[in-house]
């Protein structure tokens, strides 16, 4: 079952001549995790905005082709601190803000909020004022606030950017669990080394167009390494001049080495 279908999508930001997305066709199924990778400016963030129906609706600009969502979506922006409601004086109320706006009954709001707070390990911060949190603490709150709305299509732009190693591991594990529960997940990240364990498919964007799609092994390809999109291990292997195929992870390298 598809959650998101993009067919031949091109997109221009207002007052620009060259498109930020060029003829992109992509679908994301329920239960699937798709990761967008590419150089900065290659179009991953724009693609997420299109998937969230924020571009062009909110950003302005022009879209050709078609973008169809088959589930309600929720997006975590790369600037999560701009997503706080500004109306809540506790973390719990911040996370409840979205669900309350969906008009759910009180007990359902409480159930979703409690679950999201637990998933992001925010219980110790639940009564804190969101404006007093550290960067990583706030990023977790915003992720929880989006997940508390129970979106079927989860869109995440650099969701681990400010998280510590433990927090990032918890997040990636949570994303796997969301997919297992049938959510569709589309994410953009520059943390390539996390993807072998997280993504089902990797989409390589270059200059607004899809250059390649494949399993995470894509991140050990010669071409990906040369474009700065190889995992750290694959890149070290390539730089060393050892023959391919390059190992994707430390575990692969160890098997190769023995």
């Amino acid at each position, binding site marked *: 079952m598809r959650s998101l279908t993009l067919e031949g999508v091109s997109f221009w*930001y207002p007052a620009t001549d060259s498109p930020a997305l060029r003829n992109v066709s992509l679908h994301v199924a329920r239960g699937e995790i798709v990761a967008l990778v*590419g*150089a*900065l*400016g290659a179009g991953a*963030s724009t693609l997420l905005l299109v998937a969230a129906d924020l571009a062009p609706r909110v950003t302005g600009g022009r879209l050709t082709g078609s973008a169809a969502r088959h589930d309600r979506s929720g997006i975590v922006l*790369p*600037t999560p*601190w*701009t997503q706080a409601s500004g109306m809540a004086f506790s973390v719990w109320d911040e996370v409840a803000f979205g669900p309350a706006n969906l008009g759910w009954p009180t007990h359902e709001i409480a159930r979703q909020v409690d679950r999201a707070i637990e998933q992001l390990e925010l219980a110790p911060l639940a009564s804190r004022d969101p404006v*007093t*949190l*550290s*960067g*990583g*603490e706030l990023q*977790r709150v915003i992720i929880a606030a989006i997940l508390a709305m129970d979106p079927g299509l989860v869109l995440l732009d*650099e969701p681990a*950017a*400010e*998280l*510590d*190693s*433990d*927090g*990032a591991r918890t997040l990636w594990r949570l994303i796997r669990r969301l997919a297992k529960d049938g959510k569709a997940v589309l994410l953009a990240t*520059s943390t390539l*080394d996390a993807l072998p364990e997280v993504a089902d498919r990797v989409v390589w964007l270059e200059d607004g167009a899809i250059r390649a799609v494949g399993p995470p092994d894509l991140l050990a390809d010669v071409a990906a390494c040369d474009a*700065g*999109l190889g*995992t*750290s*291990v694959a*890149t*070290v*292997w390539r*730089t*060393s*001049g*050892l023959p391919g195929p390059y190992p994707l*992870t*430390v575990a692969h*390298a*160890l098997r190769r*080495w023995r």
Partner: protein
Amino acid sequence: MIPVLRLDGVSFSYGSVPALADVSFDIAPGERVALLGRNGAGKSTVVRLIAGLQRPDEGTVWVGDWDTRDCAPEELARRVGSLFQHADQQLFASSVRDDVSFGPRALGVGEREVERRTDDALEDLDLTPHAAHHPYDLPPALRKLAALAGVLALEPALLVLDEPTIGLDRALRARVTRGLLERSAAGAALLVITHDLTFAAETLERGLVLDRGTLACDEPLAALLGDATRLEPFGLEPPPVAALSAALDLPGRPVRAAEAARELARVARGRPAP
């Protein structure tokens, strides 16, 4: 020689929330220091204290021979360039170039020198093609990079950078590394907060770890990043290159990609072909 920065028994609380407890360390000119630790460990609080936006409850923050308690943030900016965690929101000029030149101009540097510093900083971070753009037409990662250029253009004795590489691709990260290495070679000290341990390994040489507001660790970064058991209590794990070196037992356990590749090639040459 006077350290560029000295924290001497610094404690700080936000009301009832304790953030730092009795933190002491020195940084010498040209030193490249990583400040690591969990979310909420107190890293950004250190930045705010050094920038003079907060005053310590106890202890003293010395920037050279200035006690930050006696200095306004504008004065401290003559010696310290601070990049805040959410600096992408602090751009206000109508072009990237104007934003980058604002700092040196405010310091009263001559106009030719302002131009030179602005050009250098933009070039160092590969921002020259964006110089005429409005900051808010750029993606957040580039806005933060533009803010970093503004900090470099101050050419301060001490650079304090909170998460300088968020959302950057590998080429731009390498660019930041190179720019910072050049500044450090010219004598600037670096104190860099980052969760990106790969970037830290490539760029920095000494590791400080804050653990719930106390300084838990101060040692050479490469040794620390290669040691999973030392990192584990702080919620950190070795970056992939360090993990690779350990797994393959590469000589010298390199933590930087180029060195690991060199060792890997050397060891592979000495092995019988599979």
